[in-house]
């Protein structure tokens, strides 16, 4: 067993874990933050994307011990109380989801995209940057629309480019 200490959604957590524990396992099984999904478990689909020190990573391909001392934001960390984050609201508004399985990863990737590229995102950029996220339901059109709208809304809301937790 190894001890790992992280800040998850602004909260300090410490646990003794087997070094094999993947970050996604730690989030879901130890912390019961089940918003982060496992779609493929082979690094392809992006359902497991979380922010690690402010950057989008696949938590199924990251060891929890390896990120000891880091700050992690999951989909649960985006909303403030009952108010959805502007990107979450945009997905709802533009019908950017059907079954919802890919959605946490899509939204975390979308916020990362805004962090890297700013509030004005064109369709080509969004599609290219979604390379690492797979959706079996929507055909992507409404996800792309939702991200463009969510990015603009984040600008208007003056949402901090990086989440407070990071």
């Amino acid at each position, binding site marked *: 067993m190894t001890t790992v200490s992280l800040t998850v959604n602004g909260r300090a957590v410490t646990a003794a874990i087997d*070094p*094999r524990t993947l970050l996604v396992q730690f989030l879901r099984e130890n912390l019961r933050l089940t918003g982060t999904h496992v779609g493929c478990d*082979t690094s392809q689909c992006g359902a497991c994307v979380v922010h690690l020190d402010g950057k989008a990573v696949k938590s199924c391909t*990251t060891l929890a011990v390896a990120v000891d001392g880091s700050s992690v934001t999951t989909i649960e960390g985006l909303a403030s109380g009952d108010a959805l984050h502007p990107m979450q609201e945009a997905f709802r508004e533009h019908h950017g989801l059907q079954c919802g399985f890919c959605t946490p990863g899509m939204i975390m990737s979308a916020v990362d995209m805004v962090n890297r590229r700013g509030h004005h995102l064109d369709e080509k950029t969004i599609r290219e*940057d979604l390379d690492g*996220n797979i959706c079996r339901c929507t055909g992507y059109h409404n996800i792309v629309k939702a991200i463009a709208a969510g990015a603009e809304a984040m600008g208007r809301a003056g949402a901090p480019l990086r989440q407070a937790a990071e």
Partner: protein
Amino acid sequence: MYAFTYHKPTSARQAATLLAKKEDAKLLAGGHTLLPTMKQRLAAPSALVDLGACADLKGIAVKGRNVVIGAMTTHAEVAASPEVQAAIPALAYLAGHIGDPHVRHRGTIGGSVANNDPAADYPAALLALGATVVTNKRKLSAEEFFTGLYETALDEGEIVTRVSFPVVSRAGYAKFRNPASRYAMVGVFVAKRGGEVRVAVTGAGEGGVFRWPEAEAALKARFAVKSLDGLKHTADGINGDIHADPEYRAHLIGVMAKQAVAQATGK
């Protein structure tokens, strides 16, 4: 994944000591090749030596006429680096087209070259630019370093510490991506340094990355897209798989070479 012990040294020297002490130990960089392999139980190291806290393996510096990139520098850092963008824009472009944004946030140049996947992007850049791989023991030219499919000249316990790229006058990279994995089905890197031209091909060779001498000669005479007109790469020694047969890949080499030269010449 099978069980392993986990170690996190803070310098390359400490990492080398640990690696020598632990039987069956493996280095962990970004983990974006190693962890999927361990999950599939295709690799089962008894110990992982994580290079993530080795500050001496990180960072990008311009030294004289060379761009020196630490082994633990991520693809995203290389892509976004103003130094790399100014000195060798084609290298920043290449790094920015590896995998997807999430992979680029974790994957490293050291892990990529040490792994020498026949469809990886960096090996083409190292070979075409005439880069030097620096390890904790010695310096190797790209030609000496990449020895075959997933094979390198690295000895047991040897650690890549940095890669040094000479600044060239012109360079370009084009890849035809596997639409699912984003790896190169064929990737071609061209570089012109003084009177010398190098054309390196990844994704296509049965033995990994290789140079295309005929294209180099044609581009040496005149560094322009037109010089490659009518030039065809043979399908002998070219990979075939469910994604593309050898003939199709050989054809793509010519097409990607032209696109790379177009990028290098701004045409």
